[in-house]
């Protein structure tokens, strides 16, 4: 994790503990997008993921005075987000089957056939997001925790409860599947992406 960000978090947490709720708002602003992306790795529907993320942030608000800096705030927050999402999927079975999402993506983004000269930035992002949504929950989650949140294997263990070997295997498989899925969606256009 970034040391500057960690120090900034600690200052904000100290301010929150002294009763300044605007500090909590700043923490939310700093982490909401990454947290939302992680939530979407588990809850495949964005609207539902946003609602669940709000519940997770409420838990963070209620328990922030207990935060003792044993791990970084980011690790602690992502653990709450991931656990809240998994609790919901367990209770309500909101996980959309991977095959369904894959079908949607194949129909929405068949760029291999359109063969446009250059992919627009927004299109690139949409394709990547959809490809990751189509992947298995654990693969998308571990890939995003490692590459998007820039967390170490040890921190991912703390958040997910997976073993180190499982994380390494999932990362390897995730990278391969990401590449294969992008190849299916983009065909030759994948070269412009990498």
């Amino acid at each position, binding site marked *: 994790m970034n040391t500057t960000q960690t120090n900034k978090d600690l200052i904000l947490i100290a301010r929150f*503990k002294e*009763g*300044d*709720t605007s500090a*909590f*708002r700043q923490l*939310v*602003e700093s982490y*909401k*997008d*990454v947290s*939302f*992306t992680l939530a*979407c790795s588990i809850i495949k529907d*964005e609207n539902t993921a*946003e609602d669940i*993320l*709000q519940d997770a*942030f*409420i838990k963070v*608000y*209620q328990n922030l*005075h207990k935060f003792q800096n044993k791990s970084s705030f980011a690790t602690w927050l992502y653990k709450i987000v991931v656990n809240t999402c998994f609790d919901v999927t367990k209770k309500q079975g909101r996980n959309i089957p991977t095959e369904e999402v894959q079908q949607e993506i194949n129909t929405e983004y068949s760029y291999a056939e359109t063969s446009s000269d250059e992919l627009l930035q927004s299109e*690139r*992002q949409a394709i*990547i*997001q959809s490809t*990751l949504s189509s992947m298995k929950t654990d693969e998308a989650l571990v*890939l*995003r925790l490692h*590459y*998007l949140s820039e967390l170490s294997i040890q921190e991912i263990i703390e958040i997910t409860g997976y073993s180190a070997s499982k994380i390494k295997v999932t990362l390897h498989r995730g*990278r*391969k599947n*990401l*590449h294969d899925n*992008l190849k299916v969606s983009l065909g030759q256009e994948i070269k412009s*992406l*990498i």
Partner: protein
Amino acid sequence: MNEDQTKHIVKESLLKTSDSFTDALMQKIEQQPVEVKVSTQPLIFLCVLALFFIFSLAYLIGEGVPELKILDLQFKIPALLLQIMGSFFILYIFSQILNIYKNILQFKQLKIS
């Protein structure tokens, strides 16, 4: 696909929350009822122990007992040691009560702000 390429691609998968996300969240938080959970069981236990020590200390000081003999055994506790332990124990109980009071005030302050 190597590590850097994967990192580059995954970074592009960042999703954004709706514009009203933070405002809606803060509004939800304001509407949350404040729950102050104070477990009374340990407090009652500590108070009973404190009373025991206070009575023991009062007895030892009042009688001028130099050593406390338990059940006529060879086991003797110097009264001074018991007095010191008792004093620390009472101080600990007061600090615990103060902590609970501080937490309640903190919750109330958070709710107001």
